[in-house]
């Protein structure tokens, strides 16, 4: 066994570069900001970071940290293993220790599916929050923020359901669809999920952007920005 293999924490974290430190600082700063300046709800808009409970935030946070898409992102741009594929911009070399996902700490990546299961339990709250925003004040009301939330909910749902662990669960781990019950239906579901899975990278980033956008939108409203215009309203159904 090599010295690199005996590591518990990878070299990138035990001897961090400014990129790693900046990344960790940003994550911590975001978490502290969410705790210190809470905006759980404003005028029927429930902030996604506080729904149902800010204390559950580590579950979706770990979902994204162990997600294959974001692994690619930080392995390239934070750890620089490698930064790019072409020779001139790889910024990776033989002198740097590399353990990949073999150290005990990084083996947590293999438990990604459990964070998926946890996040699936949280997913219905996105729909509940959307329902609350659309029925604010009784009746039906479509505001600019609700449109943002519709897009956010759709993207988060597609992101979660197009996950690679779910792909494995619903058929990826099977070698023979025709040997199973309802083979055509199962293969159909697997193919449909695979279609969305092929867009998983885009869905991952877009869903993250929209979750943050909804949070910032609610904070902007709280700060008094006049941006929440009503598009459509039915009073008292």
């Amino acid at each position, binding site marked *: 066994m090599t010295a690199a293999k005996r590591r518990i924490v990878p070299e990138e974290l035990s001897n961090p570069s400014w990129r790693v430190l900046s990344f960790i600082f940003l994550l911590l700063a975001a978490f502290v900001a969410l705790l210190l300046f809470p905006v759980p709800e404003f005028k029927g808009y429930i902030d996604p970071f506080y729904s149902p409970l800010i204390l559950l935030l580590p579950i979706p946070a770990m979902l994204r940290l162990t997600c*294959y898409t974001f*692994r*690619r992102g930080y*392995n*390239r741009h934070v*750890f620089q*293993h*490698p930064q790019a*594929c*072409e*020779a*001139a911009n*790889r910024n*990776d*070399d*033989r002198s*740097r220790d*590399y*353990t*990949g*996902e*073999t150290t005990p700490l*990084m*083996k947590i990546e*293999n*438990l*990604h*599916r*459990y964070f998926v299961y946890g996040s699936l339990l949280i997913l219905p709250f996105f729909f509940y929050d959307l329902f609350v925003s659309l029925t604010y004040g009784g009746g039906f009301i479509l505001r600019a923020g609700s449109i943002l939330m519709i897009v956010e909910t759709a993207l988060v749902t597609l992101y979660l359901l197009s996950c*690679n*662990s779910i*792909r*494995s669960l619903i058929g*990826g*781990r099977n*070698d*023979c*669809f*025709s*040997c199973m019950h309802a*083979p*055509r239906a199962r*293969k159909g579901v697997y193919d449909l999920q695979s279609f969305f*899975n*092929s867009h*998983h990278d885009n869905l991952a980033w877009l869903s993250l952007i929209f979750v943050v956008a909804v949070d910032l939108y609610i904070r902007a409203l709280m700060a008094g920005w006049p941006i929440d215009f009503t598009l459509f309203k039915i009073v008292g159904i």
Partner: protein
Amino acid sequence: MKKISLGIYRQDPSADRKGKIVKYHVPVEEGMVVLDAVRHVQENTDPTLAVRWNCKAARCGSCAAEINGVPKLMCKTRIEDIGDDITVEPMRSFTLVKDLVTDISPAWAVARSLPHFHPRQRSVHPFRIEEMDVERSQEFRKCIECMLCMDVCHVKREHNTSYVGPRYIVKAASLDMHPMDSLDRSKFLDREGGIGYCNVTKCCQAICPAHIRITENAIIPEKERAADLFYDPLMMLLKRLRKVKD
């Protein structure tokens, strides 16, 4: 006729301690690929230039090289797509034989170490396989073994670990997903094949000339299968219970 500047890496390891990029000026016509320009140099300027090629149709994988630092097939890279100043170098993950030719034979040793096709017991010959079951492993049959994925993989190129490399994860996945095969190679890949070294940066998938979705359809599914076997306590328990039941 328009001319381009073509830099070619030149080194004969038996004579030169260091290699160098030698610049040639090559006349080009519309539709020419990099291999045409390299052969023009070989035929008209310097016949000692070593280059390996065969089909010139992106089917044999022989002319793999690094073009402007990106691993590509010389026969599939059109000159008009990459500009007038082109540099061609050999694949850096492999030992140099001469100029643009590298020794890819160590990869065959990896191929031999993979558990081979092992048909299910009581399978009837010839195999009858449903179309829906062959789709996934058929994608991996498109591989032309050009070894560009092995060249671009930082785990092979910069870190020289025990990782078998993307080409052989694809090979293992093609066998694992074969409906008549009875083995699960994810155990081999996790314990001996070093699949944990892959950090899914997807360079192999980005440069594959056969457009195989290497990371998404081979590496990640094999990582998930390995997680079933060694890291997911629930799946490990279920597998054990199933074995007891059998």
